[in-house]
């Protein structure tokens, strides 16, 4: 038997890792991966809660999260490709034209 | 049964399965060379043993003994990891494939299957989808343009065809209503009008079978979809830079995948181990396995036959075929099947 909180803490750790990665990584693709990492952390908490409350809808939500993640990945990677074509770089610190 | 026997039986089953699979791989290579040779008015391997039957053994020894050189400027960890990944996933997928009915040894009766999970089909799909990484990483890590192109092609092609593959399977799933391969096979027992077996391929899944066939060829990078290793354009595609045992691993992975796909086709469309049963008890215990093996053999022979016959697609043709022909076809099949089942119930 594993306390629910352990699952939640695990998902929290994953999520925080994702955020920190978003903050410290410079590579667009890696940052994007960090987003996926956050999503996975959230999914874990979903499933854990579903098991805890005996409500399958939690697992259904995970599906929706996955679908959204897939769509987001497709568009995001396409954007990354477009950015790379124009700016010839993947470093976010050099993709900072959008400012006053 | 208690845990110890369970473990023991599982270990035994796994060992048997691995050995059988590896030999099957080796001899399917031999078979291919033979058949293609005959198709091209050659003899194929003849020297080693009668009809070159020992040829696979010789090849294996050769691979083991050859110098294993890693070219400079490769990204080493992945360069080494890639073939392992490929072969591991190729071999793992056999673990959920049932090759026959239950057999009874004394009081414990054992499924002819390493493990029987109720989402076996999903597991197989997952594992095969992981198999892409081997090819892709190999192509990328070996830091050569041919490999890179091969890897790119492989990954794109596999991802594309995986969709129509999965869609073609869904029709069968609707028919049987379960992910468990054993259930699927059992749902195909019986005959129409006494003589036509009630296999899915005769049961309204012809289109699905066709789609599955095409997608399976593409998934396993076989002719006519062997763009990733097109000798004429990219020397040997993603495993250009590999030699010796690493190359052998890719080779094994490819053929293991072939066999997995063949088994899957047999289970899903060709009625698995269903077939006429007769004779004494021991024969009745063995016959299903024989039927199963025979069907798999036929499927692999089809593979080789196609390889000997068809030319290679162009890459854009490949993609168009996947997205503009197979994909809609699979969806149409899915809709029709769903409608039929819904109306029948």
């Amino acid at each position, binding site marked *: 038997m594993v306390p629910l909180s352990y699952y939640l803490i695990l998902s929290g750790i994953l999520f925080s890792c994702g*955020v920190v990665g*978003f*903050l*410290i990584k*410079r590579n667009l693709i890696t*940052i994007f991966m960090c987003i996926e990492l956050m999503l996975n952390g959230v999914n874990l908490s979903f499933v854990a809660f579903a098991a805890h409350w005996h409500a399958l809808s939690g697992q259904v939500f995970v599906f929706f999260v996955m679908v959204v993640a897939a769509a987001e990945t497709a568009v995001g990677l396409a954007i990354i490709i477009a950015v790379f074509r124009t700016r010839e770089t993947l470093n*976010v*610190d050099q993709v900072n034209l959008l*400012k*006053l | 049964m208690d845990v110890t026997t369970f473990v023991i039986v599982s270990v035994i089953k796994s060992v048997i399965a691995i050995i059988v699979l590896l030999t099957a791989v080796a001899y399917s290579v031999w078979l291919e060379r033979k058949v293609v040779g005959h198709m091209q008015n050659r003899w194929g391997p003849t020297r080693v043993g009668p009809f070159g039957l020992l040829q696979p053994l010789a090849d294996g020894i050769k691979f083991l003994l050859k110098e294993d050189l890693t070219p400079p400027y490769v990204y080493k960890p992945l360069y080494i990891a890639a073939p392992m990944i490929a072969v591991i996933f190729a071999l793992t997928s056999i673990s959920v494939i049932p090759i026959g009915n239950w057999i009874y040894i004394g009081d414990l009766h054992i499924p002819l299957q390493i493990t029987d999970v109720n989402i076996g089909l999903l597991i197989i799909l997952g594992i095969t989808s992981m198999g892409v990484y081997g090819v892709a990483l190999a192509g990328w890590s070996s830091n050569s343009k041919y490999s890179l192109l091969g890897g790119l092609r492989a990954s794109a092609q596999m991802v594309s065809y995986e969709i129509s593959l999965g869609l073609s399977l869904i029709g069968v799933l609707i028919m049987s209503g379960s992910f468990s391969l054993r259930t699927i096979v059992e749902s195909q027992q019986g005959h129409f009008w006494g003589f036509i077996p009630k296999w899915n391929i005769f049961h309204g899944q012809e289109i699905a079978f066709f789609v599955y066939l095409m997608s399976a060829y593409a998934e396993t990078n076989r002719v006519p979809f062997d763009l990733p290793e097109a000798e004429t354009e990219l020397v040997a595609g993603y495993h250009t830079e590999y030699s010796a045992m690493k190359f052998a691993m890719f080779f094994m992975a490819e053929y293991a995948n072939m066999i997995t796909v063949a088994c899957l086709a047999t289970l899903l469309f060709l009625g698995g181990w269903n077939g006429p049963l007769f004779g004494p008890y021991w024969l009745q215990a063995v016959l299903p396995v024989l039927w199963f093996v025979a069907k798999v053999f036929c499927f692999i022979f089809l593979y080789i036959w196609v390889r000997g016959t068809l030319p290679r697609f162009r890459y854009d043709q490949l993609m168009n075929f996947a997205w503009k022909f197979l994909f809609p076809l699979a969806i149409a099949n899915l809709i029709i099947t769903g409608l039929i089942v819904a109306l029948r119930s």
Partner: protein
Amino acid sequence: MTPNLHLWLIPVLPLIGAAINGFWGRRFSLKTVTIVAWAFCGAAFAWALYVAARFPSLSTPHVEYLARWIHAGSFQVDYSFYLDQLSLVMLLVVTGVGFLIHIYSAGYMSEDPGYSRFFCYLNLFMFFMLTLVLASNYLIMFIGWEGVGLASYLLIGFWFTKDSAASAGKKAFIVNRIGDFGFLIALFLLIKHFGTLNFDGVFQAISGMGVEKSGAGLLTAVGILLMVGACGKSAQIPLYVWLPDAMEGPTPVSALIHAATMVTAGVYMVSRSHMIFERAPIALMVVAIIGTLTALFAATIGVAQTDIKKVLAYSTVSQLGYMFMACGVAAFSAAIFHLMTHAFFKGLLFLAAGSVIHGLGGEQDMRRMGGLRQKLPWTFWTMTAATFAIAGFPPFAGFFSKDEILWRASRVSLAYWGIGVFTAFLTSFYMFRLWFLTFFGDYRGERAMTVETVQTSPVAHSTNPHRLDAHVPAEHGGHGAIHESPPVMLIPLIILAVLSVIGGWVGVPGSLGGRDRLDQFLAPVFHSTIPAGESQGMPPEQRTEGAEPGAGHSQELIYTGISVGAASLGLFLAWLLYVRRPKLPQEIAQGLGRFYEAVLNKYYVDELYAVVFVKPLIDGSTRILWQGFDQGVIDAAVNDSADGARHISDTVRHMQSGNIRSYAAWVALGAGAVIVYMIWMGVR
């Protein structure tokens, strides 16, 4: 089932004309504009005649429901029209005189750049006036009430490029607002106590109530408030000040709005709600006193005026005073009678005066006129008829109406009668003064000689802005020399002249062997509804003159003789002073000294108001509302918030570094803050 007369057509037709001229008039030719205006106004007149023809067969009051407007719980107001004898008379007067004045204006305004605008406003006024007349409840009436106010504002300020005209329009509007305020409160009181504004409902509710003998009550309050409204609209003391200034408008406007129709709206309203007044003696008394005082007051002012239109304006005020005096003595039919005749001869006077002004190319000062008898014969003769009518010589129209008012007033109190007679004397005096000054003697205008001096005389330019606006575009010789007006202007004059001669014959009193048909006709409306025995405070024969004992006839004849004598005395005095001895007036003026000054300056009423009301108001709103509140609080708040926003964003915008990771960092910071807060809340 009473037939449906489509009364709504009568107001709506002029509205359509106004819309057409308002929207497309600018592109039309003058002829088209004229035709449109005439057509729709004339159509309204024709329909009114048709209604009149059908009237005898109607059961009065005849109410026509058009559409629902306000249905709030039990309180309901509908677009519906109310036709009875009273509104029929008003209807005919308004449409008829209005139509004549439309015709006249076509000639008078012919050179005005704002021709189409003028007719648009005129039609609009007709619409609102007819709405007012035909309203079947106080709210619709109030719409018309406000609407005519708006129209009069627009028309007074018609030459808005001229400062005096614009301010005069504003003055009229504001003063009217004061009156409307009283009217509104009266309406609220009615809603509060009777829960309805329909005439039927209100009167039915009232008819049960008795006379408020013991001083003030609800009806008294309502009556006085209504009277306040009437004061505003009908230019009674203390709210009459706007009317003389309203003469800034074109003369046809003065004729139509400020003599014939709009200013009589108050009288109409008071007599429409006569049941309220009948039950409120105090309110009645207030009305009577106000009317009497106004009559006298305005007449005295009129004596000293030199501007021909101003004279007429003050005479209008004083005539209105007569009407209210009649209302005050509960002689509503007499009031309406005088209203009608007054509409004829006063409209005629204004039109004739306008014709004079037109002929003189914009001259309005009587001191520069004289001897126009030969030059403007038609104008002269029509004017003569009107003058005799207003002065009250038999058998002209004014005689009968005024005489009836005086007679009825005398029944209540001789004070009213005395003042009324004196006022009649003054009236005839200043009217004949005007008459003599304008048409007799020899011409005193410095611009008698030649055409050249016409447009170049600075005095004329400065003194009569009318010509500046209306006639400057007219450089053709026609306006150089003094000239008679075109027939399009003369025909209405003639018609009105005839009317003001014979118009009074509908109301020949019994004493003169007539049967006072108008009174008979209006009787159903004004028959007293007071339960018998409660009608103290007014002699019995006051209800209707139908049941008057013949004994009163001789007495009435005496009174009549006295008033006629007063009128002729005024005529003689005027002849003496302005024809026989033209020097005498100055000497008298010297003799009177300060009093004459005061009269000449209208008793300084305007200045008084300016000091007492206007200046404090303007200063207060300038200091407190404008500089204090508006600039100090609202503007300051707006500006300061805007500046603050700009400063803050100046500092904050450096956050927008374009670096995704920085943005993410801010987001993370916020998220961390939220987490801390939530956990703190949750743990606590």
